[in-house]
């Protein structure tokens, strides 16, 4: 085939040999696509499917080629040139991440020419990078730093900025941008535009004037940013980072008059080990409880409690909507109902599909529900003035920082949640406290919310909210045990990492109405034989697909309930999770979460004793009742696509 190509070129090209089109880029026969092609990398032969990039082929045989702009979740860019290699017969070096193999090649990955080119490229990046490594959030976890070390950068050949040249954008509650550290790899651009379909960042200008900017260089708080933080997770340097409130949290801990409560979400617990050099997929839930107490938090609560509460409230809301639509034939009821736990998704909807706000469950996210319950119910129970309570939420999420600062989130009379911490920030606090997290003894959560259920835990993975909701809905409607419907109560069809999943579940029979719902519906006869159609989408690009389908009256418009998560993989892939991220890492975190679910004695939200107690003692008018509407439900702001 290679000869074939050469012949073609000899016949047609008038150009001198050095300028001739490189024959390897052409496939002589399209039938060869997908066939195996052999390539020799540093003397090792390997056969790969045609179209495989040199980088992939090299990784397959354990040859390490450094990369910077390349990321597993993103499309190929080939802009940083760090991965250049030498190909026999070619005049110039080629970017191995962007070179699909279409003919037999001989590649050398670390000749003198290659090493020198890489070193120059790194030097050039450093000449634009204001590197203040000690004070950088990414110190010791920075790809540029690692590359400089790997290639032994011992002086700045092309200079190095002595002072910052760009002002930092600190306007957002969630994401901070420091363009002094940007090396123009465009990972954030590809994340924001391709992966998330939000479109905040893009390369602006040309040539040496190129910079990464927002629309009209507006501050991040004024553009359509959903605060998902996926760009932070993929930035190779410290140009993007989360808005870190650890100083304020330490100040609250050190203040003897403040009662500092932290609630921990399931996704950070499944990932924080990565910050302590553990392999992805080790949940450290109970070790973390001990560590948090050593840090000085007065109480450690489990967000799973309010996740269960969310299921009850959101499930009740769904039942009420279905009742109105099916029995009362009320055409004004907005169906399908959308979940509201992901603040990134909620803001995405407020911007891009404000006309669908009535479809979003009015139930707050677990984080905010817990805040409202702590500053009312818990304050009364423990006799502490709510103004002295500081609520901190450990979340895998940068958008949660924005959520807790929403002006409407003050239903307890105070700011429901004072600070949102990410997994990375808590790891820093734990390290600062001199605590070696993986070696901590295990301890349980504090009362009165101590006991949690497996349903709350799986909120951290895509499909988890749906699974938790289904476990509860199936039991209360049919009177059957979920275990008898789905083996081991694992509703596996809703799990997985497919972008959009649609599941139909038949309601085989109706059971008695549990006491908690007696005031809402008389019986379940109207649901008998009905098919509940649900869908799950994760990542806002997939959410967009679902929304466009609904808008055009497609199949998904027939759904009853749709779970949306703003981040790929759900919360476990959130913008506050340890860096790096990749599909394998997210899958490992998901395994940790699902195995934790298995370990719980109670695995269904409506059986959570603490939740039942709360309804008995405090929210006495039941789910979706008057008080729960005041404390546990919220409203949304249509924001639209246009900015002033």
């Amino acid at each position, binding site marked *: 085939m290679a000869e074939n190509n050469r012949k073609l070129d000899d016949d047609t090209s008038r150009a001198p040999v050095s300028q001739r089109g490189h024959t390897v880029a052409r496939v002589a026969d399209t039938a060869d696509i997908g066939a195996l092609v052999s390539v020799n990398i540093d003397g090792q032969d390997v056969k790969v499917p045609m179209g495989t990039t040199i980088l992939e082929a090299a990784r397959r045989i354990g040859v390490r080629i450094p990369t910077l702009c390349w990321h597993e979740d993103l499309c190929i860019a080939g802009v940083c040139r760090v991965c250049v290699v030498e190909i026999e017969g070619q005049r110039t070096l080629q970017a191995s991440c962007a070179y699909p193999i279409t003919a037999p090649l001989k590649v050398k990955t670390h000749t003198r020419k290659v090493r020198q080119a890489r070193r120059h490229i790194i030097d050039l990046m450093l000449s634009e990078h204001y590197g203040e490594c000690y004070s950088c959030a990414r110190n010791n976890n920075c790809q540029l730093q690692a590359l400089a070390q790997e290639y032994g950068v011992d002086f700045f050949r092309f200079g190095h900025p002595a002072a910052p040249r760009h002002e930092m954008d600190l306007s957002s509650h969630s994401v901070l941008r420091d363009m002094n550290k940007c090396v123009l790899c465009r990972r954030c651009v590809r994340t924001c535009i391709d992966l998330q379909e939000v*479109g905040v960042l893009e390369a602006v*200008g*040309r040539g040496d004037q190129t910079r990464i900017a927002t*629309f009209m260089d507006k501050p991040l708080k004024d553009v359509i940013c959903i605060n998902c933080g996926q760009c932070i997770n993929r930035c190779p340097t410290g140009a993007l980072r989360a808005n870190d409130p650890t100083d304020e949290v330490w100040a609250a801990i050190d203040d003897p008059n403040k009662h500092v409560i932290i609630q921990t979400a399931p996704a950070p617990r499944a990932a924080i080990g990565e910050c302590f050099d553990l392999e992805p997929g080790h949940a450290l839930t109970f070790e973390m409880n001990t560590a948090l107490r050593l840090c000085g938090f007065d109480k450690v609560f489990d967000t799973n409690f309010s996740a269960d509460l969310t299921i009850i409230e959101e499930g009740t809301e769904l039942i009420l909507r279905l009742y109105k639509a099916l029995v009362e034939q009320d055409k004004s009821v907005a169906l399908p109902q959308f979940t509201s736990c992901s603040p990134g998704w909620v803001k995405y909807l407020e911007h891009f599909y404000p006309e669908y706000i009535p479809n979003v469950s009015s139930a707050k996210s677990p984080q905010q529900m817990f805040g409202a319950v702590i500053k009312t119910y818990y304050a009364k129970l423990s006799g502490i003035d709510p103004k002295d309570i500081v609520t901190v939420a450990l979340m895998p999420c940068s958008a949660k920082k924005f959520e807790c600062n929403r002006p409407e989130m003050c239903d307890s009379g105070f700011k429901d949640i004072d600070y949102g911490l990410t997994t990375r920030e808590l790891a820093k606090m734990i390290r600062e406290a001199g605590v070696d997290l993986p070696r901590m003894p295990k301890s349980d959560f504090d009362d009165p919310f101590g006991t949690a259920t497996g349903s709350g835990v799986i909120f951290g993975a895509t499909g988890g909210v749906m699974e938790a909701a289904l476990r509860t809905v199936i039991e209360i409607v049919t009177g059957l045990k979920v275990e008898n419907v789905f083996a081991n109560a694992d509703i596996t069809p809703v799990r997985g990492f497919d972008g959009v999943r649609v599941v139909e579940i038949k309601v085989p029979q109706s059971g008695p109405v549990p006491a908690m719902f007696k005031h809402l519906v008389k019986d379940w006869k109207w649901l008998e034989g009905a098919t509940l159609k649900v869908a799950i989408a994760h990542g806002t690009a997939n959410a967009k697909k679902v929304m466009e389908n609904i808008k055009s009256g497609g199949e998904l418009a027939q759904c009853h309930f749709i779970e949306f998560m703003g981040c790929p993989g759900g919360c476990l892939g959130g913008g506050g999770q340890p860096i790096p991220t990749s599909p394998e890492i997210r899958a490992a975190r998901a395994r940790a979460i699902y195995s934790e679910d298995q370990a719980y004695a109670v695995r269904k939200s409506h059986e959570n004793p603490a939740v039942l107690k709360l309804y008995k003692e405090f929210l006495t008018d039941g789910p979706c009742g008057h008080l729960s509407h005041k404390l546990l439900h919220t409203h949304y702001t249509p924001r639209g*696509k246009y900015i002033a």
Partner: protein
Amino acid sequence: MLVTERERLREEITALADRHGRQRSALIPILQEIQRGHLQISDYAMQVVADLLDIHPVEVFSVVSFYSFLDEKPKGRFIIRLCRTISCDMAGKAAVARQLENDLGIGFGETTPCGRFTLEWANCIGMCDQGPALLVNDQVHARVTPEKVHEILAACRRVFGIYAQEQKEEHAV
């Protein structure tokens, strides 16, 4: 911008989008027409274009910022672009540049306060054999001399009417 103005702009861009097709590849033709009609592409116009083509406003901004002939801020009615590359430089670009600055009373990269003229550098405009060359909007002037600069500017001023002809570009407003 007034609401009615916005509506008018939106209608105009919608017509352009329908003419060129509502896909990514129509972006530059649409932007060029907006530029021609309004001498700028306002941030509102960019958002409308993005909305109609189902792309993001920042992508439109990226394209506008990339091309020298697309402007996000208003420039003069006449944009004079003098070639600064080597052939024109050797043919006497410097004298022409001085004359332009002197006659217009502005430096390169600036717009006269009356909003009539913008002076800019251009990179090669392909008139290397006939330098120094400049562009007045999309009209090419070759073998420009300092004397010719007067004629070129006078011709531009004539567009603004008989009284404007002799008037120097005054800066006191």
